[in-house]
């Protein structure tokens, strides 16, 4: 997967654990991926798959008792998962920007948007207040806020949901980070606004060469935005590959089921009421992750080996897929 310095972010065998009185819960179990400059990597999965936790670990905001138990996180070739708090704090915002789901809780309601932008800019860059304000105006313009001169002194509550999310994006961009972690950035927004924010993220990645880790449960958003996509299930990456390949020709049975269960607009009435593909059951709880392949109890194609041995991601076409169906030692791959 490319040479080390070329990648903005590299995650190697990351394992996140939550020690509890009743034993250790493994929320993220040995995942590896990397993101190149200007690339949008979608991380998709259902609730509890560990996708947000992975993002949190990368920005170093994992809350105790959660901890990184194994693995490495490298930002531009430099290891950041073992840095002390203060060093991490300087990387956050400066080299890694974050966008969260709810734009209202990401902004301080007591300060104007301009004050928050200027403060953030001056924390990371050594420039004076007037310069910082000009920069804030330019950022607001870049994220598509009309007449930023008039809006910069407004408070967050004076913005609509979509505009607020734009402000949050401009905050994340303040110090020109190399990497942006966007955790469900469009989930709280209406569909029409969602499309605008997706376009904006895409444009920023392309024009600024920023690497984006886009975490979402919405395959539609991934299909529109991401270059590559990692599908997570029960703390593991089950499939990772170019978005077209994953969306159109999913190899892993979970990805295939997930794609089939997404309602799509159908025009002919004969198709309209055809039942959706459904995956029986639900994602396992962390204290009861099945042995072998975590998906085997819900998988229609599982066989003996799936119950005992855990599959590692291996190349299948242009994807990496963690599934025994594609192992050459098995007689009949589907």
């Amino acid at each position, binding site marked *: 997967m490319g040479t080390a310095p070329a990648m903005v972010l590299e995650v190697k065998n990351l394992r996140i654990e939550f020690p509890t009185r009743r034993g250790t819960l493994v929320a993220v179990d040995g995942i590896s991926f990397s993101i190149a400059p200007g690339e949008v990597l979608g991380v998709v999965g*259902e*609730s509890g798959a560990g996708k947000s936790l992975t993002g949190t670990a990368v920005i170093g905001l994992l809350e105790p008792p959660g901890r990184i138990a194994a693995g490495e996180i490298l930002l531009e070739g430099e290891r950041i998962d073992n840095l002390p708090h203060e060093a991490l704090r300087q990387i956050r915002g400066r080299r890694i920007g974050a966008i969260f789901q709810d734009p209202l809780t990401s902004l301080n309601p007591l300060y104007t948007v301009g004050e928050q932008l200027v403060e953030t800019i001056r924390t990371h860059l050594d420039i004076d207040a007037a310069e910082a304000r000009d920069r804030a105006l330019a950022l607001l313009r870049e994220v598509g806020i009309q007449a930023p001169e008039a809006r910069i002194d407004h408070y967050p509550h004076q913005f*609509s*949901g*979509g*505009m607020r999310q734009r402000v949050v994006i401009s905050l994340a961009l303040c110090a020109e980070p190399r990497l942006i972690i966007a955790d469900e950035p469009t989930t709280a927004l*209406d*569909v*029409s*606004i*969602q*499309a*605008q924010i*997706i*376009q904006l993220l895409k444009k920023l990645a392309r024009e600024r060469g920023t690497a984006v880790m886009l975490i979402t*449960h*919405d*395959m*539609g*958003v991934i*299909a*529109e935005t991401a270059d590559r996509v990692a599908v997570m299930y029960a703390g593991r990456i089950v499939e990772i590959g170019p*978005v*077209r390949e994953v*969306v*159109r020709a999913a190899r892993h049975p979970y990805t295939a*089921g*997930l*794609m*089939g*269960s*997404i*309602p*799509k*607009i*159908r*025009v*002919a*009435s004969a198709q*309209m*009421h055809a*039942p*959706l*593909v*459904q*995956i*029986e059951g*639900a*994602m396992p709880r962390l204290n009861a992750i099945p042995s072998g392949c975590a998906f085997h109890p819900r998988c229609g194609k599982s066989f003996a080996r799936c119950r005992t041995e855990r599959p590692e991601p291996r190349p299948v076409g242009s994807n990496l897929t963690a599934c025994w169906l594609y192992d050459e030692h098995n007689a009949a791959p589907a």
Partner: protein
Amino acid sequence: MLLRLEDLGRDFDVSRPWLNRVLEGVPRQLLHAVDGVSFEVRKGETLALVGESGCGKSTVARLIVGLYAPSRGRIEFDGVEISDPEAKAATARIRRRMQMIFQDPYASLNPRWRVRDIVAEPLRVLGLAADDAQIAARVAELLKQVGLAPEDGEKYPHEFSGGQRQRISIARALSGRPEFLVCDEPTSALDVSVQAQILNLMTELQARLGLTYLFISHNLAVVSHVADRIAVMYLGRLVEIADAEELFARPKHPYTRMLLDAVPDLEMSGRQRTPVAGEVPNPLSPPPGCAFHPRCPHANDRCQAERPSLIWHGEAASACHAVEENRI
């Protein structure tokens, strides 16, 4: 015709407190959450009501089941008016024939009740079972019907996942043997694989029990799987209503077109999407004329001045000057 809404309206008083109004000299302020909405739901069909947040679709649902009283207009169920606050007895008899499924299965089930009591509540309240044995039998039957085990009745809601909880609320809604279900975003809080399970279950139950659904959703893709007809709302008013097939193939109102365009393209066909401009305006001061005109690429002077009314052409209707004048 099972349900008929006629020029239905509901205002909410969002004025500042009396003292502020007196001291600051500000007038009362009314929010027209639902304004002049008329449509019919036919027996056995699924009518979907779609729109973005704040368009009034949930308010319509609540008006129909009687959680809100209408400010204007009337609601008829099976030929009987149920919006008249005076006719309580007649209304109560009718209301047993409809039930509601709510969006959030974490908030709509009492956490301190066992599932069997939750599902049995309508039976007890409506007096539909003679004794406890009958109730237990009916609860077991209902749980099986929605894909749960009768033993699950002993558990509490927190022992279930979101999808299973939504199954419990469906069982509860079905326990009074209603004909008509109002489903307010029943799957939007669920993961997509679970959403597919619930949508399939609802379709299957409809076929088996001959139910009529009013299905409220913001997601057109979800709606395309369940709806026979679709009504689109914008800022408290109906802008278009048509057969599902017709609406997806030939959307008329520019807002419907915009909503369809905003659905992410999963087929990766590389289809060019018209960028959607602007956001839903503040419902407290809706734009004059057609409320959609500031975001509409086809708006002209007439759209800014005159509010379009819903005009029927056969089975479909839309409220748009541009459509009516054949400009689009």
